[in-house]
């Protein structure tokens, strides 16, 4: 199957690959997927305590090109958003932006899960209740 231009671009020039200090209280880390399933995403956000906006986002992903592109795109979208705005990112937005075929939709679901997991980690660290995410089929 041929990849879309956007997937190839994110794969070839991934944005925001890296690691934030997970010990910091204003850093939230989400690790989703499983090695046996062929994809694992780790997505991290750093929240600016003054403005409440996401000042930095990083990812590392083990997976196919679509999984790498989905997480790269997610970090791009996260930067500059508030936590509430970040929660509204839907996997179908990623599907649309990257032109993912049906067989790759699970990559976008994983990216959405990673965003939610990172936000939850941040919330728990900062004494806020964990959000119960709606479960999407993978």
């Amino acid at each position, binding site marked *: 199957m041929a990849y879309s231009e956007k997937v190839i671009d994110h*794969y070839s020039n991934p944005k925001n690959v890296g690691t934030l200090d997970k010990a910091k209280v204003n850093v939230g880390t989400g690790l989703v997927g499983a*090695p046996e399933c062929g994809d*694992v*995403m780790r997505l991290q956000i750093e929240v600016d305590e003054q403005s409440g906006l996401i000042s930095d986002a990083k990812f590392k*992903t083990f*997976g*196919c090109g679509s999984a790498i592109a989905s997480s790269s795109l997610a970090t791009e979208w996260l930067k500059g958003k508030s936590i509430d705005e970040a929660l509204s990112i839907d996997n179908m937005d990623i599907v649309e932006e990257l032109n993912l075929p049906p067989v790759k939709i699970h990559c976008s679901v994983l990216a959405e899960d990673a965003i939610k997991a990172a936000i939850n980690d941040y919330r728990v660290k900062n004494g806020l209740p964990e959000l119960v995410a709606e479960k999407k089929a993978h």
Partner: protein
Amino acid sequence: MELKLPIYLDNNATTPMDPRVLEAMLPYFVEKFGNAASRNHSFGWEAEEAVDYAREQVAKLIGADAKEIIFTSGATEANNLALKGVFEMYATKGNHIITCTTEHKAVLDACKHIEKQGGQVTYLDVQADGLIDLAALEAAITDKTILIAIMYGNNEIGVIQPVREISKIARKHGVLFFTDGTQAVGKVPVDVNADGIDLMSFSGHKTYGPKGVGALYVRRKNPRVKVTSQMDGGGHERGMRSGTLNVPGIVGLGKACEIAMHEMEAEGKRLSAMRDRLENALLQLEEAYVNGNREHRLPHTTNISFKYVEGEGLMMGFNKNIALSSGSACTSASLEPSYVLKALGLGDDLAHSSLRFGLGRFTTDEQIDFTIDAIKNTVLKLREMSPLWEMYKEGIDLNSIEWAHH
């Protein structure tokens, strides 16, 4: 020599046709178009003569008699004919077939079909190196066993099964031995008598011949083997396979076998040296492992897992320039990683991280150099991007993490 891109390293999927094969085939499309079954005119005689000649060429390569070659549409049909044909023909003798878990789908699915028809099938596990356990094979034989179906060389990992030992066990118990020779014929010396083979399938397009043609070897002496035809019609191919013969395809298969007969030995040496060079260079990467037995295997194949990177993601790094296959789930419609690699006891994670290299007649040293660099670079780049690699480097045991399976 100048580097030619893209590089084709998927010769276990299919091989390009040798131009000499095409040349042999060409007259049989327009000029010599006759039906080999037309007995009353020169067009038919010409076609029949070409088929007879090809039958000799094919038989010679595997040490068989020409009468023992049944032409089919390919190895899938030959596998089906062998398995279902023996099951039906020997129904009064028994209904049990022994095969193994790393066989090609054309064998496994034909066996599944036979089970639905009331047959009993034993699927032997393979050992960690991909070879079957001969003691387990012998122990599986019952008084109802009619056939042992074990492939010659594996398509994914290239492992060559101990065919002679298997046939000895089969003979000892009066059981027929069928082998899927698709990947082995034309690549390594195969001799149906020395190897003790009763039935063997193979195809044209895995050995520089055309697609859409293959053959089933069916032993005629010691013992005389018969299969029930799976297609009814004009009674071609000694009644075992009806259907107008694919004359150009058969001519091509014959020519491909003749070329292999002359060039196989030198080609095998050249390809195994090239394969070893590729393999050794890639094994210099940390956490890279060869899947399957490295001693008993086809000369042109290697299958390597690069831990902590995913196969499809890996291929994307170079698939503009290099064509090969991965055991990763993402390359198949099923989203399941390779059942062959899983049968070796590899974890799904290693199966997801595998690449299969299939070298061929037209592979050059320059292409291998390019491939080594491209794959090394991509593995290193993706590991920088891999959370699993980071954890591994930090000494975190990945098995200690509770993964969210989905």
